[in-house]
């Protein structure tokens, strides 16, 4: 094969080509008689070979740069998606928290109403009040019961308080202690405390604690207790 009519190495514009374009064009010169075959000039063959190697290395370098650039763009897009998602989750979290807070507030309000209803004080006659206890007595409920009972004793100037436990089928140590606190507090205000509706299980639990039966009058029913209070009032 003969040399090209416009050999890159002899062209006027070759010096103005960018290094990449020069390398690119030179790498095509594989069939040139100066590069291959019997007429090849070793120095030119070496030069072209080295140029080709350099062109490949440069291509690989450019490729790596492009890959990194593309990867960075992709990561940036992913980051935007992620941020967007986090933002939506934050809104969801905020909404959920607000809903939960409203529910908790409502639950508290309902609990307070329930507690007030769970410690009703009945005025049975002049100077006689009754506190029917139904269900479990925990510390919070005991506080409400005690507060209501003591307030009623002093406001009504009652001298007898009937604590009716007919609605308490079983009781644990903690609840029994709470009841004893209520009874002791009523006694301190000078009221006679009458216990009614005491069941076996409850009695067993109270005896196991610091319960002194002589300090309280224990009767079977509220009716009996009321009768006793009335007769005491008459005798005074």
């Amino acid at each position, binding site marked *: 094969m003969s040399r090209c009519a416009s050999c890159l190495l002899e062209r006027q514009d070759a010096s103005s080509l960018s290094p990449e374009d020069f390398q690119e064009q030179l790498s095509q010169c594989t069939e040139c008689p100066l590069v291959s075959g019997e007429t090849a000039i070793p120095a030119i063959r070496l030069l072209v070979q080295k140029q080709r190697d350099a062109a490949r290395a440069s*291509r690989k370098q*450019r*490729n790596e740069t492009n890959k990194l650039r*593309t*990867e960075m*763009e*992709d*990561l940036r897009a*992913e980051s935007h998606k992620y941020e967007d998602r986090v933002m*939506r989750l934050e809104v969801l979290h905020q909404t959920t928290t607000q809903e939960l807070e409203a529910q908790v507030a409502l639950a508290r309000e309902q609990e307070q109403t329930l507690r007030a209803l769970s410690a009703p004080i009945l005025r049975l006659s002049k100077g006689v009040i009754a506190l029917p206890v139904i269900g479990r007595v925990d510390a919070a409920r005991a506080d409400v019961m005690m507060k209501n009972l003591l307030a009623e004793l002093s406001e009504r100037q009652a001298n007898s308080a009937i604590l009716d436990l007919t609605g308490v089928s079983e009781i644990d140590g903690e609840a029994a202690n709470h009841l004893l606190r209520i009874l002791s507090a009523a006694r301190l205000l000078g009221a006679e405390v009458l216990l009614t509706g005491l069941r076996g299980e409850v009695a067993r639990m109270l005896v196991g604690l610091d319960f002194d039966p002589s300090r309280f009058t224990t009767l079977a029913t509220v009716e009996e207790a009321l009768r006793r209070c009335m007769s005491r009032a008459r005798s005074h």
Partner: protein
Amino acid sequence: MVPAVPLPALESRIMLRAATVSIVHEDAFLAGRDAGRELLEELGEAPSLVVVFASSRYDQAQMLAGLGAALPATTRIAGCSSTAEIDNKEALVGSVTAMGLCLSGAVGCETFRLLAPIDDPYASGRAFGETIKAKNPALLLLFPDGLAMNNAPFLLGLQESLGPQFPIFGGVPGEAALGFVNTYEYEGREAFSGGVSAIALTGPVEVVTAAAAGFQPVGVARTATRVEGGRTIYELDGIPALTLYRQYLGTRANDMPIVGLEFPLGIVGGTIGTQRLPMGEAVSVIRGVNSFDEATLALRCLGEIPQGAQITMTRATKDDLLRAAADAAASALAKMPKPEAVFFFSCAGRKLVLGSRFKEEAEKALSAFSPDVPKIGFYTYGELSPVEGTTMYHDETFTVALLREKP
């Protein structure tokens, strides 16, 4: 006396020579051209076949023109567009990734194309299969368009011609932007949409495959009691499908399309085509939920859901997905310890779910293989891989295919 040079043992001799390159370039023609040139440099000779997966952000015709210009006319080219690509080292975006294969005399290759419109996928699949069968193929790499065509009946038609257990693997062409607008298939030096491209290898060549998704079933399996058009589920156990999906996901069900990919449906039993899936708790194939219809309370899936199939809701963490990729690679490698070429097909939905960690998936799978073994893959709009010997369409699954020339 010249000492005799011992021939390498048959087992250790690499019979199928291949190399993979990936190029990222602003110019589509130059990206294709540089990929072709690098393949020639790496292989030291012109490859018989080039399998190419390229980002859809490139001008596809220009990219193939560049690739074709760098390679001799005798080199066959086939492949498709992709959401992301996998080369020997990593998963990458925006590249032209190509594997060149120099086939020995015994192993040959043929490439095929089927152009749009494909009005009757089953009949077209059957006819396409007959054309391929005439070349006496040993296995088939398939790239069918998933936007214009329901792949399930096409695959069924193909298997009708080639046989239900004929080894078919590949992926549904993807898009870089995940817009579900236009995907491309390549065959020869041309790109087209809405069709199918395929590569058949002939001669003494064998393939093993593995697939794993990592999604775990949640709750009880329900029967798909009303499905229309193969891909729209109206009712599960007689209850509107969207109602159940919302019960499961709450308000997040509205966050389509990402939520439909994060929480796909799993098929745990039933029949797809002619293949009866094993009944049990394990998910056989995954179906991503593409969209929903508020008026009919229906879920539209990416892949076929046959009426009567047993469906479960699924969930997975990112670590579950990454573990599945490693499991699939290990499972395939256990079946073929010395592969000569490795193919990965992972779902674009997995890339979306994994987000910035998507490269870890390829890392997990790539690390299972020797660095010397050429590997290529892409992120697809659906994967084709066998379940108990019969190739099926999968969603959101990581699939592996290992290839070697029979010793």
